[in-house]
């Protein structure tokens, strides 16, 4: 067990080197000379050379790669090209609004989806089960953009129930700003979540131990909550844990539409101004998050399910 965990921990290193390699190839090799974009058409050769020097683009490719690898461990990403701010500072500031939106939305959507799934699993094969499944598939077939646009226009603009956009720091103030994007987040995730949770729960329901429990005379609801859900929790927990790093990135599109000054909005601003260091930093941070939570989810899986053998 410990051996397995140590091996998985060590495996993070080559993966992190690989992620740095992808980012390096994209932004430092394929991208060409960014100084032409940054300085505009009228830049002299001298100015471009100076800027290259300043941005560290004169270094050998290998040491540029090493810089990226180093930043994955130190989280020191240098300065933004567009705002000249220190990037780690920007990320620190952007994390607050992002998390204000993503944590409540994530928690509520997971709980609601789980409740719906248990409910439809209880009534499996009945009309209500079919109805929920149809709603899930139909809901997943509508573009996220359409939901955001329609909800913002209808609930914030037409009915005026929520703020149209913006953000304010501090508890209760931010609620009126994040309420609507959080609702949209929940609506968007219920479809795929319920579909997954329902499949997992139904996979368990046809197992032999459930038949045994039934033959003992246990009520259907006891079986569902005490036996089935406990076993179904293993894949459900790993599914939930693996999504946690996406909270760091916030919801790119939601933050953009509602002008929430979080990390998602920051990433899109960087995209529009070709701000490579910020894009690189966000790519590295979110990948590190994915790797760490992927590891946690794998370990949880093996801890929770004794049937899994370690190699």
């Amino acid at each position, binding site marked *: 067990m410990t051996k397995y965990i140590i091996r998985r921990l060590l495996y993070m290193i080559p993966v992190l080197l690989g992620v740095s390699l*992808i980012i390096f190839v994209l932004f430092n090799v394929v991208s060409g000379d960014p100084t032409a974009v940054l300085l505009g058409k009228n830049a002299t050769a001298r100015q471009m050379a100076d800027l290259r020097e300043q941005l560290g683009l004169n270094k050998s490719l290998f040491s540029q790669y090493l810089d990226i690898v180093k930043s994955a461990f130190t989280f020191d990403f240098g300065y933004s090209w567009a705002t000249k701010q220190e990037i780690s500072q920007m990320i620190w500031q952007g994390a607050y609004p992002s998390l204000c939106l993503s944590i409540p939305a994530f928690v509520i959507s997971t709980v609601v989806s789980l409740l719906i799934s248990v409910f439809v699993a209880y009534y499996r094969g009945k009309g209500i089960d079919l109805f929920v499944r149809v709603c899930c598939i139909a809901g997943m*077939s509508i*573009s*996220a*953009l*359409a939901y955001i646009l329609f909800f913002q226009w209808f609930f914030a603009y037409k009915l005026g129930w929520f703020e149209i956009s913006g953000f304010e720091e501090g508890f209760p103030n931010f609620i009126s700003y994040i309420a609507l994007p959080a609702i949209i987040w929940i609506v968007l995730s219920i479809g795929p979540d319920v579909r997954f949770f329902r499949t997992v729960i139904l996979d368990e329901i046809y197992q032999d131990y459930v038949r045994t429990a039934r033959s003992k005379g246990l009520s259907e609801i006891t079986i569902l909550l005490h036996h089935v859900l406990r076993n179904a929790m293993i894949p459900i927990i790993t599914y939930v844990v693996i999504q946690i790093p996406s909270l760091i990135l916030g919801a790119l599109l939601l933050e953009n539409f509602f002008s929430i000054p979080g990390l998602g909005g920051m990433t*899109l601003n960087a995209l529009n101004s070709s701000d490579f260091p910020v*894009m690189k930093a966000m790519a590295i941070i979110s990948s590190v998050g994915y790797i760490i939570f992927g590891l946690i989810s794998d370990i949880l899986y093996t801890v929770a399910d004794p049937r899994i053998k370690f190699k």
Partner: protein
Amino acid sequence: MKTNSLWKDAFIRLSKDKLALVSLIIVLTYFFVAILSALGLIASNWSQEVGASNLAPSMEHFFGTDIFGRSVLLKVIRGTQVAMSVGVAASIIAIPIGVLLGALAGYFGGWIDDFVTWLYTTFSSVPNIMLLISITLILGKGIFAVYIALGATSWVTLCRLIRGEVMKHKEREYVQAAGAIGGGHFRKLFRHILPNVSHIIIINTSMQFQIAIKSEVILSYLGLGVQGEPSWGTMIDDAKLELVRGVWWQLAGATVAMFFILLAFNILSDALRDALDPKLKGK
């Protein structure tokens, strides 16, 4: 008892499923419209003014007109061409890479397996949306960059699935038999194992296709996708400012067009999985 091949069996089961058949027809219709549009037979005059600016949907203009008086219906058709082409291009890039790497890794194991596993773990460690926007930004905005970006992200799942399935198959008796009569590694892998795992390619492509369509719409909305041509994403972007003035038909046109193709692919993917995955047979 007479037994059918996997494919014939799957076809019979699929054709009994009315909903799946309807979905298949919808998908084929979208392909047909996209091909006609690509050949310039329909909607080639989408940029022409057909009426006044921002006309509401009517019998004359089914989906209304946009701010320049262009037909929204024709723009939706051009958008269909873009969306379907992205799905096809992403599959053309992803299938050979995913199948080849997955098959080699699963069959040979050893350092090849280590390398391929590392490669797809690395790619799946970068959040998809970050990889997509980075690649399209670096390669220069446009539809070509979107093709590459989606191809580069969608081979990962296929590779992982093929690897796992080939690993299971390589010890089976039929493969040993092929070896016993003198079949080499490549013969065993490509003539014997691959046909038996190829259903995974079909199921996975059907699922990746909807992801490709959704991603294209988001990338185009962000201004990274197709330039100077209508796409469902750019139409939704236009609608962002129009909704306030009560102009809802561009949003509706793009959303409805997207809704039916995604719904069809969703249902079809499920039906294909049920029909082709022998593990679920009889359930």
